Every structure is written in structure tokens, then in C-alpha cells.
């Protein structure tokens, strides 16, 4: 187990290296400068700015300088937000996005697993059809369609929740649900398929033959095995929630990382883009390692070191 985690962490280093190199070179090699999007800057001023942000010298020097700063955990200064470091911006915005994202993750997982199992138990009945139609509809309604509609319905026509903002408990409900629902739909479909397969297995028949009540058979015995595909899907799920939260944060005016990232891309804010992409990738790689370990804990048949 320990060697497995260590190996995965070591494998992550080349991946992050490629990610950061691609981002840096793409941003630096294409025309346009990271200080002003449209105005041309006088050469003397540009030279000074480049020196301040360590963007002078050859491309190779800039690149290796940036890499060594990153290795020390210094994500450098934002080229757009004056005198603010990328570390500082991330420290302010990342917790907000993480809160929203993890709540959405829990909602998606919980409702998806319940809906999918429910559909599987009532296979081919009207409950199954209704649940699966809901799930198909959910997949076709991404967060950026759901969110404006939800605001219209539940914040304006029926003023149950605030329209936008961040800080109060009731301000997180609507965005988290909008972010979660499309993924809940995907999980429900996965869960249904896998539950149907598990319900045919021998150990479920044994459990039923013992005379256990149906809900015990399903929730204690079958669910443990049937949830495995959902566990392995939660890696890509986390990635999608992360990108989904970019639009949700924008619509609900939530001060998370998403709007900063989009602005920094549009402004060619080199180090802000680099830092955000790096943080996104690190978060997902760590999350995937956790998922794989969890998979191992849940399914003893898998051997991590093989």
C-alpha cells in the first residue's frame, strides 16, 4: 500500500512537469504580452516590467527560472493584479471553490447512488423508467442551463433562496445543487447498471435465502460491491465538478477560483494561469490516488502492487 502511494506520487511529477511546461510555453510563445491585452507598451516600460516579473533573458532562462520557483512553492506574482502573489490569490479563493465543490460532490454521490439503486430494484417498472428519464434529462441539463433557470424559479418567482452571493449558509444551497445534478444523473445511470449485475450474483441469492429483509440485502450486501464503478468514476467526476464550478461561480457571483481563472486566461496573466492549472492538476492527481486507495479498501480482490 505504502509503495503504491509512493509510486503514484512519483509518477505524478512527470505529469505535472508536462502540464506546466505546456501551459508556460503556450502562453509565452504566442504573440501578446502578459501585462496588457490590447494596448502596446513602450519598449522601455516593457523591459522594466519583464525584469520585475523575471520574464527577461532567453526563453530557456525564463522557463527554468519559473520551474525552480515552482519547485520551491513560489507561484510568483500575478501580472495583472498589481503586487498580489498567485499564492495569496489562491489562498483566498481556493477554499471557497473547495467548499462548493465538495458539497456538490456529496450531493451528486448521495442522490445518484440512491436514485440508481432505486431504479435497479424496480427494474423495468415505472419507477425505473421515471428515474432513468430523470437521469437522461439531468445529463442534458448542464449547470450553466440549470443555474439561471433555478435562480429564476427559486430566487425570483419563489423567493426561497438569495439570487447570488457568498457567505451565508442559504447562499450555498442553490449553486451546490445546480453543480451536482448533472453528475448525480451520470452516477445514477452507472449505479443502476452495476446494481443490476450485482443483484444477479450468488451471494445476493444467499443473503435472500437466509431470509434477510430486502433492504438489508440491498444496502448492506449488494451496495458494497455495486458501488465500485461509482468509486472509480469519482476521479473524472471531481475533474468535471471542478470545471463546472467555473460557470456556477460566475453565475452566482461566488468569489471562488473559477472567475479568477477565466479572467487570467483572457488577460494572459501568465503566472496566474500557470498557478491555477498547476493547482487544479495537483488536486485531481491527489484525489485520484485517494480514490484508488479507497477502491482497494472496498474491494479486497484488487491487488495494488501487482
Amino acid at each position, binding site marked *: 500500500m505504502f509503495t503504491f502511494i509512493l509510486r503514484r506520487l512519483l509518477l505524478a511529477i512527470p*505529469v505535472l512537469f508536462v*502540464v506546466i511546461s*505546456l*501551459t508556460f510555453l*503556450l*502562453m509565452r510563445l*504566442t*504573440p*501578446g504580452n502578459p501585462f496588457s491585452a490590447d494596448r502596446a507598451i513602450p519598449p522601455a516600460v516593457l523591459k522594466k516590467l519583464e525584469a520585475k516579473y523575471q520574464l527577461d533573458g532567453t526563453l530557456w532562462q525564463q522557463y527554468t527560472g519559473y520551474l525552480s520557483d515552482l519547485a520551491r512553492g513560489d507561484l510568483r506574482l500575478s501580472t495583472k493584479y498589481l503586487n498580489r502573489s498567485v499564492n495569496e490569490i489562491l489562498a483566498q479563493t481556493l477554499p471557497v471553490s473547495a467548499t462548493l465543490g465538495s458539497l456538490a460532490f456529496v450531493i451528486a454521490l448521495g442522490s445518484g447512488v440512491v436514485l440508481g439503486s432505486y431504479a435497479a430494484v424496480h*427494474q*423495468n417498472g415505472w419507477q425505473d423508467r421515471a428515474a432513468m428519464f430523470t437521469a*437522461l*434529462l439531468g*445529463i*442534458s*441539463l*448542464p449547470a*450553466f*442551463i440549470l*443555474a*439561471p*433557470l433555478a*435562480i*429564476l424559479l427559486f430566487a*425570483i*418567482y419563489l*423567493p426561497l433562496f438569495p*439570487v447570488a452571493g457568498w457567505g451565508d449558509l442559504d447562499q450555498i444551497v442553490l449553486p451546490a445543487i445546480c453543480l451536482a445534478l448533472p453528475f448525480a444523473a451520470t452516477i445514477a445511470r452507472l449505479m443502476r*447498471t452495476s446494481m*443490476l449485475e450485482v443483484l444477479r450474483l450468488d451471494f445476493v441469492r444467499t443473503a435472500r435465502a437466509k431470509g434477510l429483509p430486502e433492504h438489508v440485502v440491498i444496502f448492506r450486501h449488494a451496495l458494497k460491491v455495486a458501488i465500485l464503478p461509482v468509486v472509480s468514476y469519482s*476521479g*473524472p467526476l471531481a*475533474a468535471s465538478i*471542478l*470545471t463546472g464550478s*467555473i*460557470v456556477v461561480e*460566475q*453565475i452566482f457571483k461566488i468569489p471562488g477560483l473559477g472567475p479568477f*481563472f*477565466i479572467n487570467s*486566461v*483572457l488577460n*494572459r496573466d501568465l503566472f496566474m*494561469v500557470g498557478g*491555477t*492549472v498547476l493547482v*487544479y*492538476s495537483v488536486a*485531481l*492527481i491527489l484525489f*485520484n490516488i485517494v480514490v484508488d486507495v479507497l477502491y482497494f479498501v472496498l474491494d479486497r480482490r484488487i491487488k495494488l502492487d501487482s
Partner: protein
Amino acid sequence: MTSDQPHLLKLPCWRDPSFLACVGFVVALVIAAIAGPSFTGYRYDEMGPQFSPPSWKHWCGTDFLGYDLLTRLLYGARISLLVGFVGAFVSLTIGVAYGAISGYIGGWVDNVLMRALDVLYSLPRIVFVIVLVAALEKPSNIWITKLGLHDIIPDARLLLLFIGLGLVEWLTMARIVRGQVLVLKELSFVQAAKALGQSHARILWQHLLPNMLGIILIYLTLTIPVVILEESFLSFLGLGVQAPAPSWGSILSESAQYINPLRIYWWLLVFPAGFMALTLLALNFIGDTLRDALDPRSQKK
């Protein structure tokens, strides 16, 4: 060489009314997207009264600049469907090539390529598309000007979207194709072709590919809605097609800015959301039904 997979057009789902309804909807939408904008009586950038609710003059109302919403939605359908189809096709090309090579060569090459795929699966791919589109916009305009094609500059973003979205959505296709190749390459007709001394490229192209066509087409139909969704996502963020040309995502994001409790312009949200949701629902349903019909595992119910 025979395929034991049933022909796509002979599947039982062609007698399923909801499947036919979805196919009909998509066909109607394609026709409306191609022909519709010239029949609504307005250009997509023709200004009229602002914020007028749906009426006989403007079936879906007008937006904050007085543009006719129906015209813009149909024009947006053109762009969304175009990006969806072309982007899915780009992803198909990459995915099939990657999967076929990985499965056909096998051994350590297969191992390395599949691990790389696992890594790509877990990265925020759309984030790279955002960076790619933003970074390559200026250079692509410069190249186009150099080639003397000034006229297509407004459409340059479309080109970037085709490539960018195609570049991120090929992973599932690659996995499916690799799995198929692994099975097919052990079959006797492929072994026979090898024994006859046919080249690897020829075996892949003439023997393996035709046998995978059904499953490739199904995953193509499943990729189209995903690409449409991603295009609208990017347009919503202002990285898609450029104003005043409309796309579903940019229409929605403009409408979202005019949500306020004092004056409710419901048509600005309901029509774009309805158009998009119905289209994605129909495309997803078609893809699902075809997959279930061809996947032997889902048949043993």
C-alpha cells in the same frame, strides 16, 4: 470477411416510437438550422424593439439589443451542431488511430499508451482547451491573414473550437477501439490476412476497421452531445464564437446577466435552455438506444 454485428439500420430500435421521435427532432433541427434563419424574417443582428415578449411578430421575443431571439437560436443551432459534428469527427479520428495502434501493437507500447490515457482521464482537460483557445487566438488570426484569407477571421474561433474540443474528447473512443482490436486481431480471418503477408496498415484499414464501424458510429453519436455541451460552456465563458454571431452558450450567458427581481424576461432564459436541453436529450437518447441495441451485455436483462 463477415461481421456478426447486426446492421445499424436493421436494429429493432427503428420501430421504437420515442427513438423515432428523437431522430425526427434532430433531423428537423438540422433542417431548421440550415434553412430557418432565412425564413424568420430577421437577420441575427437586426435590431428591433428591446425586450419584447413572445408575440406573432417575434415568436420567441427579442433580447436586450432588440435582436429576434428565434433567429438567433436557429443561427446558434447551426454553430452548435457544426461544432458538435466536426469536433466529434476530429475526436473520432484521434481516438480510433490511438486505440487501434495501441491494441494492434500490444505489449509494452499498449501498456504505456493506456497508462497515458489514464493520466489524461484524470486531468481537467477542458481547462487546457480554455488556455489553448485563448493563447492561439491571435497567432491563428495572424496566420490566416498571411494566407490572405481575411474573410474567415470571424470564424477562426470555430476552427480553434473544432480542434480544441476534438483534442479532449477522444479518450473513451480510444479505449473502446483498443478493446475491439484486442479481440478482433486474434480472430482467424486476421491471422489469415497476416499469413498472406498483408501489411499491418492494410489489415487495420481493410479488416479491422470495417468490423468496428458500428461501435465507432455509436460512440460518435454519444460524443456529439458532449462536444455541443463543451462548446456552449466555452461560449458561455466568452471563449466561443465571437459576438454578434450567436451561439446557444453566449445567448444563455447574455440572458443570465438580465436576471433581476424587478423585471422578469423569462423568454430570454426559457427558450435557449429549452432548445439546448431538447437537442441534448434527443442526441443522448439516440446514442443510448443504439448502444444498448448493439451491446450484448445490456440485452441479457
